[in-house]
């Protein structure tokens, strides 16, 4: 921790803070934010971050649609969302100000690099007058700094080109913000030196910029005070920050290990926001992981099925439109009873919709979206770190029940990050698969009497030669059968197998509050954070409201119905037009109420608090 200089007013303590770095795509806001997050994590705060990329690959400089932002929420106790309103906003250019100001709370700190507020940039951002010169910003604590100039001076000694010099502006800003919140900067310096080992001048310049920004805060009388946020109490152990993508991928690796499957085949076709799963796994070849970028999603799903037939842990991942293309083949996996992990990184629909925005509107598709009576298990992820456990569960269920499993996550979780207590690998669950080898009494249609899972018999095993396919098969022999009663029997067993999983998953717990009350706020997926905080808030007002978050969507936990019936009302906030609520109503005949938000953005805690309050008043 840097001590604040004596001449400087003491830091104002805060429980939690939300700040956002916003600038042009080229301004390195993602790196700036991530580094701030690291220093914050290392300072012992709990935190949550969310990056907001522009929809365009690389929009023209200075345009509003080219703005890239990174938000971080940190505090001295459990932090579960990236935060609603901003305490501080860093706007590296007019466009960044234009697009982000609405989220800054009154009295919040606003840092602007005045050098960028030139007529050209102002018009590009759609300003007719310079907001820095008119009263429009009077509600905020504006720091009008010529970052560009001050930074240029700081880096001058290293003889960088104008362009290069400009590039380090973000480090100057980072330095200032690290000072403002009393964070260390040694890890960032370390990192800069590692990153630019081959270009020592650039490294030095960036470090100088960082220090200059920090020094500026420390030595100047700023019109904005500085703050301190005490560390959060955390369980002992080794931590790191993870995005949903990181922990999902590691969960898959852990799942393969737990299943004792040393060949993993991941077949996928790139699509936003799902591609990072493919990218990460492509970097893990040393784990015996084969990644296959197929020609399309149909091929990816079918390749996964082929790999499963061959005895590998088969994985495919995509997003809504790609999952739509996979549905016919998913039916084949259900019919042939082969284990495949199907990951859906949900994004805004319908059709191409809002590819870069988050949504959870593919639940219907996951549960109902196939021809025929074609049931399969559906599970979902709630937080970035939760993805690890859910991925392992997907592997366990798929291999134990010989079925494709739909794992629903979304674009928000894929990119959001939070600190994670790294698990002890020796303590992780283990569920080794058994391949059939004994030819005596073998039929491809043999089932485990308990799980009803079909036998997994691999090509290459002498005496188990058999044929599978998408046509209905005889219950006893596994041969093609057009027999009416057999079709009924197979339809029933396919359904019973999936329903039976309910006996093999944890009972539904209550995330916050009692298991009875005036209202249960029921969610699934990435709405966990905001619902959690909102329920806490209304409970603080003495309301008998509980938060129930469902991971297992098909089948539901055995006790879910009884649990929900112990509440006077059930409110179901979803980032879709009301999908889980429909399923709950038909399953339990309870008048669950829909609370839909379909804007491509996560719920704000405040929105939920208001919604819960008003419903309770009704």
């Amino acid at each position, binding site marked *: 921790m840097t001590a604040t200089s004596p001449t400087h007013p003491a830091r104002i303590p805060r429980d939690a803070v939300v700040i956002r770095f916003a600038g042009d795509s080229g301004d390195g806001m993602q790196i700036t934010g991530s580094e701030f997050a690291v220093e914050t994590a290392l300072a012992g705060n709990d935190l949550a971050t969310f990056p907001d990329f522009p929809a365009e690959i690389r929009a023209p400089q200075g345009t509003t649609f080219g703005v890239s932002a990174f938000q971080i929420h940190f505090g001295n106790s459990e932090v579960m969302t990236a935060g609603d309103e901003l305490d501080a906003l860093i706007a590296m250019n007019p466009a960044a100000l234009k697009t982000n100001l609405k989220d800054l709370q009154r009295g919040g700190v606003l840092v602007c690099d005045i050098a960028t507020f030139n007529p050209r940039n102002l018009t590009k951002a759609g300003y007719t007058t310079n907001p820095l010169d008119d009263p429009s910003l009077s509600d905020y604590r504006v720091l009008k700094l010529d970052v560009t100039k001050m930074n240029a001076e700081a880096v001058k000694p290293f003889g960088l080109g104008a362009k290069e010099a400009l590039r380090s502006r973000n480090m100057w800003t980072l330095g200032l913000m690290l000072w403002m919140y009393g964070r260390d900067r040694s890890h960032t310096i370390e990192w800069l030196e590692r990153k630019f080992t081959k270009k020592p001048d650039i490294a030095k310049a960036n470090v100088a910029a960082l220090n200059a920004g920090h020094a500026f805060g420390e030595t100047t009388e700023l019109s904005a005070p500085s703050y301190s946020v005490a560390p959060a109490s955390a369980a002992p*152990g*080794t931590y790191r920050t993870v995005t949903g993508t990181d922990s999902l991928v590691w969960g898959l690796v852990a799942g393969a290990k737990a299943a004792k499957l040393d060949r993993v085949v991941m077949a996928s076709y790139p699509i936003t926001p799902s591609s990072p799963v493919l990218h990460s796994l492509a970097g893990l070849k040393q784990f015996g992981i084969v990644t296959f970028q197929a020609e399309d999603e149909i091929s990816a799903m079918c390749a996964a099925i082929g790999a499963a037939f061959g005895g590998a842990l*088969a994985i495919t991942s995509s997003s809504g439109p790609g999952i739509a293309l996979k549905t016919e083949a998913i039916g084949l996996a259900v019919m042939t009873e082969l284990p495949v992990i199907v990951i859906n990184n949900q994004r805004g629909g319908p059709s191409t919709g809002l590819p870069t925005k988050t949504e959870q509107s593919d639940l219907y598709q996951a549960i109902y979206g196939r021809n025929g009576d074609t049931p399969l298990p559906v599970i979902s992820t709630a937080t970035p770190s939760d993805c690890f456990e859910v991925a392992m569960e997907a592997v366990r269920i798929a291999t134990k029940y010989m079925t494709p499993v739909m794992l629903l996550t979304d674009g928000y979780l894929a990119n959001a990050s939070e600190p994670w207590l790294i698990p002890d690998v020796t303590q992780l669950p283990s569920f080794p698969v058994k391949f059939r080898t004994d030819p005596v009494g073998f039929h491809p249609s043999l089932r485990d009497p308990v799980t009803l899972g079909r036998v997994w018999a691999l090509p290459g095993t002498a005496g188990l030669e058999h044929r599978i396919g998408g046509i209905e098969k005889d219950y006893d022999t596994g041969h093609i059968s057009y027999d009416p009663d057999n079709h009924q029997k197979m339809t029933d067993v396919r359904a019973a197998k999936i329903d039976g999983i309910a006996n093999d998953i944890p009972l539904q717990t209550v995330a916050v509050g009692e298991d009875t009350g005036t209202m249960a706020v029921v969610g699934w997926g990435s709405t966990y954070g905001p619902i959690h905080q909102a329920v806490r808030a209304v409970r603080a007002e003495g309301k008998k409201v509980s938060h129930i978050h469902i991971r297992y969507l098909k089948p539901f936990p055995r006790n879910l119905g009884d649990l929900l019936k112990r509440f006077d009302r059930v409110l179901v906030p979803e980032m879709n037009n009301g999908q889980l609520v429909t399923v709950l109503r038909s399953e339990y005949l309870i008048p669950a109420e829909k609370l839909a938000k379909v804007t491509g953005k996560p719920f704000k805690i405040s929105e939920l608090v208001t919604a819960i309050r008003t419903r309770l008043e009704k």
Partner: protein
Amino acid sequence: MTTSTAPLKASDFESDQEVRWCPGCGDYAILKAVQRTLADVGATKESTVFVSGIGCSSRFPYYISTYGFHTIHGRAPAVATGLKLARPDLDVWLVTGDGDGLSIGGNHMLHILRRNVDIQLMLFNNEIYGLTKGQYSPTSRVGTRSPSTPLGSLDSPLSPTLFALGAGARFVARTVDTQQAHLVSVLKRAHAHRGTSFVEIFQNCVVYNDGVFDEFTDKSVAPDRQLLAEHGKPLVFGKEKTQGLRLKPAALELEVVTIGENGVTESDILVHNETNRTLASLLGSLHPPAFPQVLGVLYCDPAPTYEDVVFAQMKSATGGPKDLAALMHSGRTWTVAG
């Protein structure tokens, strides 16, 4: 059970399933030829897999006593690719039809060929959709009357050979259902070739497209209408093998000449070079009556197989964390003391 010690006979590759093609269907002959081939190459039941799509032809796996996967329409190449990426040790055969492989499955066909996954790919071309009762297919000739084209089809047909060559196939061959000896010899070549061996088999659908290949398969005309190409041998045909193909000087076209007539000698006849893509596509585009139908291995020019390069790269990938714990601890971490 099979212990697969003693070499297997063709009959050992018959499954216990009743074969359900129409009486007289060309598929029966192909089935026999494949069973014969499996025996001749010393295949084992347990390490052989037949993957198919949907169609009459795609019923094939049920009739072979090896492992088999009757997948969905057009997707067999994708399933086979996944299977080989999990299990490069398996000997995989793919069975598809002109509809399954070139209509709905055209994209997967294209990509398995360019990737060169090591399988034998048999396209049963009967120029019709058999299973769905006789609609025209992408290989049906213009004017084909079918339930969906009562006044005759209009789309100009694909040439499987030219398509495969354009897709980057490294092995392209053609043969005929009823010509057992030739069929078996071609299938053995296909099996010997590492990479995707594309074999088009002209197959007669007695119910919906009977006799469509008679112009060159009918016993009476076969010798004069078929040219059985062999690498390194002159491209001759006819009962007395007196007719042959000659390259038109500087025209990049072939012409039919008769040895002994207006000064043409053996030496004028083009010698088949199966490693020449251009020659293969020239031969592939010849059709009766003006030209013979060229059968046999038109093109064979091996290249590394997809699974070979995939697993070689995996072997070489020695960087990065070695185990799960190391992976999860990679990058920035911090410790909270207990």
